[in-house]
């Protein structure tokens, strides 16, 4: 690339300004979230907003030890990890079949999996609520773990099907000549080679489940309440505890941001279901 002539000082300064502006635009809300979480209610409600103040961890102590945000985070963690593990266990063999076997109705099955990603959660939340209430499983983690599969399973299946298809078929054929069955080939040859896709789809599955709100507020009350559902329960009442809301938000967001940064190279691929690499 013509990196020397065109990138003179004249054109580099506007670039630096623009890039910094974009970066600030993306990051500033997080700065404000964290600083607000370190403010007492008195400071948070001062007019105009204060940029320099004495930080306190009081909000964190309060939300974690008095309001039980810690317990809801444990719920979120259990739900997100369980649904991710289930999605991988169910999704990997299915992806292998889609990539390796020929059978009738394959493309219809493919369309059905994709459509699951498009459906609004409220469409499933209404009947799921009635069914779950009827069997008496309302406010249990199991229900969330199962319903989150509606978006996690498609992700795992897509990304892994893609990866299985990129594994040369010669490997399978050699193994078949050796007398290995399909399960053997799947477990000992293809699955180890597909580990990158398994890892990436697990991270996505975890992020989406951890972030989910609508099912959580419809299907849980207390025992199985997740962290995002807890965060919005502060919104009731007249005077909003800004510091506590932002402390809870910070606690919720930190793990997903870490995961997102780890998977940043794959993020686009995951969010577009492998359509863009």
């Amino acid at each position: 690339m013509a990196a020397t002539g065109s990138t003179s000082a004249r054109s580099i300064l506007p670039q630096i300004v623009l890039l910094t502006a974009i970066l600030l635009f993306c990051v500033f809300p997080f700065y404000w979230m964290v600083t607000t979480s370190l403010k007492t209610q008195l400071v948070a409600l001062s007019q105009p907003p204060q940029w320099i103040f004495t930080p306190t961890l009081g909000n964190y102590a309060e939300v974690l030890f008095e309001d039980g945000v810690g317990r809801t985070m444990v719920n979120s963690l259990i739900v997100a990890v369980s649904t991710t593990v289930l999605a991988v266990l169910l999704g990997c063999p299915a992806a292998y079949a889609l990539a390796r076997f020929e059978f009738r109705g394959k493309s219809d099955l493919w369309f059905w999996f994709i459509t699951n990603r498009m459906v609004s959660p409220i469409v499933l939340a209404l009947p799921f609520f009635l069914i779950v209430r009827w069997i008496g499983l309302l406010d249990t983690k199991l229900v969330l773990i199962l319903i989150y599969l509606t978006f996690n399973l498609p992700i795992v299946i897509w990304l892994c099907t893609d990866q299985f298809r990129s594994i040369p078929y010669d490997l399978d054929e050699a193994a078949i000549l050796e007398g290995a069955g399909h399960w053997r080939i799947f477990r000992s040859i293809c699955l180890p080679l597909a580990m990158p896709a398994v890892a990436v789809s697990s991270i996505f599955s975890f992020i989406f489940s951890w972030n989910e709100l609508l099912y959580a507020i419809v299907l849980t009350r207390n025992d199985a309440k997740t962290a995002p559902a807890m965060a919005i329960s502060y919104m009731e009442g007249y005077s909003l505890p800004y510091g506590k809301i932002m402390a809870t938000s910070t606690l919720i967001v930190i793990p997903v941001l870490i995961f997102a940064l780890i998977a940043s190279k794959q993020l686009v691929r995951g969010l577009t279901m492998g359509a863009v690499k």
Partner: protein
Amino acid sequence: MAGSAVSRRTLWGFIGPAILVLAAVGIVPLVYAVYTSLHYFNLTNLKDQEFIWFANYAHVLTDDTFWAAMGRTFILLVTALPIQIALGLMIALLLHRPGLTFLKTITRLGLVLPMATTYAVVGLLGQVMFNIKYGVVNQMLGWVGIAPIDWIGDPDNAFVLVIFWDVWQWTPFCALILLAGLTTVPDEIEEAARLETKSWWTVLRHIQLPYLVPGLVAIMILRTADTLKLFDMVFTLTRGGPGNATEFISLLIQRTGFRSFDQGVASAQAVVLLAITVVLSQIYIRIFYREGP
């Protein structure tokens, strides 16, 4: 394409569990939603569940509130999406230019943050930052001499705020997808074109655009689906208000089902929304994922 015919037992062994589970959590509820939508079904009066044929659908399809919410959802899509694509493209082109590697890497990492953030938290952050009295945004506007704006309390401003916040969260997504597209343009072709012309527009239009098409289609599919799904961020930011200025389709269905307790009508709304979603996604998918597995 290598593929093998296998016995039905092996096939079901691999794919059966996934199909069964996804059918149990994805299709059984839908069947039940259709059942509910054909009944009078109110959570406050569960004794009285009468089969009323298509009365709920007749109500929904002639209901101004329903079409207003659909209309709002559509307006949000056609205003936010072009802004996201245009800004995203500009950011992608900027990041694609050579030089300043370190700053560009940092910026790319910064772009990852908004779209991974819990949608509910994005809404809560909006509440804090755009508050008329304590919000930092009005403070900043004050620095350049603009009087405080009632972002959340005024119907028109609240709608603009939702657009703005959606743009904040999803422009980076468009930028990164389009940047991925730009990097697929072979270097020789791009260099040859740049020797021919100095205009970035000509290069974009004639050289880069074909490589951006898959990404653009993916953006349109996913943003359409996500706008029809949009709930968390608006619920935590405005609760659909003031009035119903920001009541998008998912919020309307949630209100009908869980705040008015009219599950029959809400299910009918949900089934109509589902029909629209399926039609749209089939069109999109057939255009885009043509090749299939």
